[in-house]
């Protein structure tokens, strides 16, 4: 441990003495203080936090991420190129210890810088919140600077219904020439649409089971968060909607509001509107001239307060820290067998693949990397390349999602709770699983390679 620590201290010293820490620290603080000044918010609590948290946290993540990668690629590769590593590996210290020591050094550096900028963001947030108008401050306290969790309708599995319908159709038309797979897809879409679309003059009911939370949520305000898509645009750009929320057999709270489509709306509802079983019933009436569509994914959810903002913020930073630790691992592993510039190139390549998960998943949905039939949204037939590419993409996406499935910045800026469970999952998936595999590759490669060149190279 002493040996590992010696190398960790050496790495930290290098960062400090090469003035990297100071430059980075300045950049970080600059991005925290200056960026929000440059960008105007709309004066509302939500807009204000959105900008402050989204931009500063994204800037910090980006800045630290790139510098971490750069540092991690260099810290080992440089030592090998400049031969100092020869002085170290001839001492009684295992190569994995050297590797781990360097990793720890960069990770500790990251932790310090991240904590520093985190504290700055938090302080700035509280300071600037004082300047908001009082009613906005109340919103800030209740809706934004909190950690809220959300509940949705249970997801419905359409597969049995689709199958039943499909068999029925096939039985009724035994002679029809149909592509069964295509028919099944169409039926699925039909079922989905019936759940999502609310036609003119129709109503839609959501029943959300609070379960055991009905005890803790007693007398607590709840928030409805909703987003819809309109089939046709109207002149005003907003759509009147009538809501009625409360137990079916008791006192209900009505809302009449005019909302814009394709954006999230949030409104607070009175406490204790759920029934004895803890089921909250929300009815919605569409009296527009056009149909509205509430997607199953984010059409409607109920938010409730779960905890304070401070801890939540810390947990969010924790997830960002997991990402940074992974980038350290990636950079060090690349630097274990490549020269510094090539290692940097490779790991940036990985980063790009990692951030293109939406392209990957879209390709998988379409079923081909080639063109798509625009009527159906899927490819008509697969090409030869697809048979190779699609499984590779599917695998890649699974790996990438291990890391990408967390969105701490978005959660924090919308006052969502990041639970300890989520943080724990992030540590396991990002640091141990993904990072562990990459680190193992790096350590093995570093342990096996020759560390001197034919000629001295300085």
């Amino acid at each position, binding site marked *: 441990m*002493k*040996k590992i*620590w*010696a190398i960790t*201290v*050496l790495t930290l*010293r*290098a960062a400090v*003495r*090469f003035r990297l820490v100071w430059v980075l620290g300045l950049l970080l603080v600059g991005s925290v203080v200056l960026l929000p000044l440059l960008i105007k918010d709309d004066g509302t609590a939500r807009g204000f936090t959105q900008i402050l948290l989204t931009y500063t946290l994204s800037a910090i993540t980006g800045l630290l991420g790139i510098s971490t990668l750069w540092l991690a690629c260099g810290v080992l590769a440089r030592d090998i190129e*400049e*031969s*100092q590593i*020869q*002085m*170290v*590996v*001839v*001492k*009684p*210290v*295992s190569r994995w210890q050297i590797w781990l020591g360097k990793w720890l050094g960069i990770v500790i550096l990251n932790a310090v810088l991240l904590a520093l900028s985190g504290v700055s963001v938090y302080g700035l947030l509280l300071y600037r919140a004082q300047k908001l108008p009082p009613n906005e401050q109340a919103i800030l306290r209740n809706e934004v600077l909190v950690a809220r969790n959300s509940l949705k309708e249970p997801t419905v599995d359409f597969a049995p219904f689709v199958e039943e319908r499909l068999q029925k159709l096939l039985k009724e038309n035994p002679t029809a020439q149909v592509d069964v797979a295509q028919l099944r897809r169409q039926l699925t879409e039909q079922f989905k649409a019936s759940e999502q679309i609310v036609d003119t003059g129709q109503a839609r009911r959501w029943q959300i089971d609070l379960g055991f939370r009905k005890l803790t949520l007693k007398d607590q305000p709840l928030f409805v968060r909703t987003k819809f898509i309109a089939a046709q645009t109207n002149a005003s750009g907003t759509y009147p909607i009538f809501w009625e929320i409360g137990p079916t057999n008791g006192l209900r709270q009505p809302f009449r509001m005019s909302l814009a489509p394709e954006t999230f709306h949030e409104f607070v509802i009175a406490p204790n509107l759920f029934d004895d079983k803890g089921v909250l019933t929300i009815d919605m009436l569409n009296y527009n001239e056009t149909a509205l569509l509430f997607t199953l994914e984010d059409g409607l959810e109920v938010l409730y307060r779960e905890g304070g903002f401070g801890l939540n913020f810390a947990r969010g930073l924790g997830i960002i820290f997991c990402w940074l630790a992974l980038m350290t691992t990636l950079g060090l592993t690349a630097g274990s067998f490549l020269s510094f510039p090539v290692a940097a190139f490779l790991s940036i390549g990985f980063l790009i693949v990692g951030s293109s998960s939406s392209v990957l998943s879209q390709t998988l949905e379409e079923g081909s990397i080639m063109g798509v039939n625009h009527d159906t949204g899927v490819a008509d037939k697969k090409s030869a390349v697809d048979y190779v590419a699609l499984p590779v993409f599917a695998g890649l996406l699974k790996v990438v999602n291990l890391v990408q499935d967390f969105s701490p910045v978005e959660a924090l800026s919308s006052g969502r709770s990041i639970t300890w469970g989520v943080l724990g999952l992030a540590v396991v998936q990002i640091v141990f699983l993904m990072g562990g595999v990459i680190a193992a590759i790096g350590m093995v490669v570093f342990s096996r390679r*020759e*560390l*001197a060149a*034919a000629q*001295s190279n*300085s």
Partner: protein
Amino acid sequence: MALLESISGSVPKSATASPNENVIVVRGLTKVFKDFWGRPKARAVDNVDFEVRRGEVFGLLGPNGSGKSTTVKMLLGLLYPTKGHIEVFNHSPRHVATKSRIGYLPEESYLYRYLNSGETLDFFGNLFDLPAKERAKRSEQLLEMVGLGSVQSRVVGEFSKGMQRRIGLAQALINDPDLVILDEPTAGLDPIGCREVKDLILALARRGKTVILSSHLLADVEDVCDRVVIYYGGKIQAMGTLKELLATPDVVRITTPPLPRESMERVLALIRKDVAEEKIRIDNPTQNLESYFLGVVQRARQSDAATSGATSGGRVAEYLRGDENVEGSLAGTNRVLERLTLTGAGATSGSEKMPDAAPAPTVQSSKLEALTKPLEKPEAQPNQAEAPKVEDLEKANQKLSDLLNKKK
């Protein structure tokens, strides 16, 4: 020799077996460097066999690019052999624990430029798991020994090459190693530094440490090595003790103080009976430039000249000396330069090498008896020889003081 065992508590010391125990065994060692596509590019070391025995100073000699450094790097596990077998203390060179018994100075001082000399030694001490107290003590002694005690807080990136070399040497000794591998240890050092390094090597050898010295500077090797191998083109061209390799058994040299003319004539007449006139050579032994230079510097130091560079010549670190009890009275005056003259006078620790030339070897009467037959070289015309020598000395003196002034 083994007095110091107790100090280096953390270093495994199993090296107390038989004196002929092999520290290193190399068999059929071959290294072929390959290009990117795996095609052989250069055969740097080609089927080499040798062993290094405990307590000897072993020299790897050869011109540049002959495979010395490649061999050294394979001994240290920095390069892996293409073929063949290496054992260091009965283990593979890649065995981690064995490395606690090895000290290594690479051919260039690959130091972390942002650390100062104290931190550098502390860092390497940590890698040997030395306790903090011991690290501090050894660092201080080593820095004193290599003459960098006064520049401890300067970052080594700012050091001159020679000063970096000194730090490199210090870090190689922080663990009180049983085996010291020095790759071109005197490269970049001034003559005083060279002499100190050589004295250090001899001091280590006296304590039963094994030293491997790779060099193309023949004087270095000749001064300190017991046994050498000579490399050329990756192959061993010659191997043996210096005595075996260098002795010229058909020549004898007798050295005396200046003799009266008539004694000289008598001696010569005696010799001419056995040997033809043209085979007798008479001259003054000259000291070599190194010992002369050291004399000049020593005089300068006694007159207290200031220098901003490495303050030359600390004494060998106490924990490395190991003979402090025996030479207790000497310890105070044991500056390396002074010890040099002592060593020259006779403390040649059981091997034939010694600072050559200058102080003439003492004549042993037994040896004389054994050598009755071969001829002797008396000195004719001592007065004639004296004059040019003084002139030479003055010239050299001038040159050296110019050199010193320029440097400092």
